[in-house]
């Protein structure tokens, strides 16, 4: 058993503020409010300086005092510190002065931001003594739990809706995990997982380990600040499924300002959803914080297809409080967004990335993000996982015989004539 962290003190109910011990629990006994990790920032401030962070390896664990485990991380020690790409060509295409892409399509090991949350959840699962870990997933989380559990020698179960993309199913099976495919939407998978977690004492990363899991997303926000030269970006656009990532990026910026690691400058966070499942964006547009669940999500963006977003309420408040807003886009616009990012920046994102790019485009066009501003787009997963979404929509290879004459006739001469 590790000595308790002197920095990570308790779990705390986000609704009523009641404190709980750092166990595998996730909701308040009294009002079902979500439990969140609480820290002793006064203890962290003198220890976690820019110099200390900069002296550490380029992984998300360089901010470990702000992550909820007791000892040293034991799972996913190489995760994070993905590139922050200065996206000049995309900036021109979207008509904004300056743009950065936080590129989690190349996160290690499973090419999505979920490796961040899983490394925290499984490091904590080990500290709490779990032998079996599991998750409810729309795909990316399943891939990450399967891979990280395999390398940690933990037995794992991943539960997914039956209609996921093949790449995401194979991307779990290959690690030897137990893939359980549920005939139902993600919200039904979620409900079942909640019941299983209560029954067998497994460590479900997004159920009973959720307070630990969710904090991993903060590392994306910390990295953005550090990579921008220790400042908070004025405008940040993030995709929303449950709304957790956006909420945690908001928390991360606030924590860095509170610790004096960055100047306490004003910033806004913007959430992006697919129109076929946009309960948070629609509530935000209606001007309410009552999130009306979507019974049957209909979109190619399966990774964001969560009809009952657990953190929707908090995501709305984060956007409102910072002066941000939400946007949604159609499936066709998702494909356009994927292609635009790929053609401008050489980054192949999954469908959620297409959502972020297309919603950012609308936010800029409508002046919600000013054209003379600087913005960061959070791109959270790799496009090789969702190839079905763009198959047949990016043209076809030109087939020729292996002859120079054919090349000149069908390729070179045509292309030079066109140019």
């Amino acid at each position, binding site marked *: 058993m590790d000595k308790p962290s002197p920095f990570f003190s308790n779990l705390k109910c986000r609704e009523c503020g009641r404190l709980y011990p750092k166990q595998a629990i996730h909701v308040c006994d009294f*009002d*079902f409010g979500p439990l969140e990790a609480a820290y002793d920032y006064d203890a962290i401030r003198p220890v976690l300086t820019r110099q200390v962070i900069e002296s550490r390896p380029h992984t998300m664990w360089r901010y470990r005092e702000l992550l909820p485990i007791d000892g040293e991380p034991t799972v996913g020690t190489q995760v994070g510190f993905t590139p922050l790409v200065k996206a000049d060509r995309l900036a021109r295409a979207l008509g904004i002065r300056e743009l950065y892409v936080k590129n989690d399509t190349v996160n290690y090991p499973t090419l999505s931001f979920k490796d961040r949350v899983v490394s925290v959840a499984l490091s904590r699962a080990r500290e709490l003594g779990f032998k079996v870990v599991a998750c409810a997933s729309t795909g990316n989380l399943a891939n990450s739990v399967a891979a990280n559990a395999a390398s940690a020698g933990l037995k794992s179960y991943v539960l997914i809706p039956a209609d996921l993309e093949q790449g995401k199913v194979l991307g779990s099976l290959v690690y030897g995990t137990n893939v359980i495919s549920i005939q139902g939407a*993600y919200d039904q998978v*979620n*409900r079942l997982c909640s019941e299983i977690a209560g029954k067998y004492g497994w460590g479900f990363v997004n159920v009973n380990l959720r307070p630990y899991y969710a904090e991993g997303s903060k590392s994306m926000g910390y990295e953005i600040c550090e990579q921008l030269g220790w400042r908070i970006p004025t405008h940040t656009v993030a995709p929303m499924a*449950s709304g957790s990532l956006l909420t945690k990026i908001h928390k991360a910026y606030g924590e860095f300002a509170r610790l004096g690691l960055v100047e306490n400058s004003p910033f806004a966070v913007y959430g992006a959803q697919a129109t076929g499942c946009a309960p948070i964006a629609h509530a935000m547009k209606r001007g309410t914080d009552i999130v009306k669940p979507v*019974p049957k999500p209909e979109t190619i963006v399966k990774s964001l297809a969560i009809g009952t977003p*657990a953190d929707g309420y908090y995501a709305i408040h984060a956007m409102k409080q910072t002066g941000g807003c939400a946007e949604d886009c159609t499936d066709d616009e998702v494909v356009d967004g994927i292609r635009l990012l790929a053609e401008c920046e050489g980054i192949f994102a999954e469908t959620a990335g297409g959502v972020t790019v297309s919603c950012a485009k609308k936010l800029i066009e409508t002046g919600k993000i000013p054209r003379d501003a600087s913005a960061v787009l959070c791109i959270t997963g790799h496009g090789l996982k969702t190839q079905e979404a763009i198959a047949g929509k990016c043209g076809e290879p030109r087939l020729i015989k292996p002859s120079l004459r054919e090349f000149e006739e069908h390729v070179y001469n045509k292309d030079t004539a066109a140019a």
Partner: protein
Amino acid sequence: MPTVLIPTPLRKLTNEIEEVSAAGATIGELLDNLDRAFPGLKDRVCDEAGNVRRFVNIFVNGEDIRFLEEKATPVKDTDEISIVPAIAGG
């Protein structure tokens, strides 16, 4: 009587029993009856105004009551009711 699956956070009130039976023609009545059997349970699930709390989901045979008739949703003896805390994305 309908069967109710009790989530972990409420089991302290049900002496750690995971599944109970409760009478009631609607979800509202069923919650009142559950509260008589396990005092305090309704306060956990519903807010001061008597509405189901923001972070609680109630399902009848897997269907969210927000897509049915909320607390007026009718229940039959053979129904399975789940009370589930909202959980994070994946």
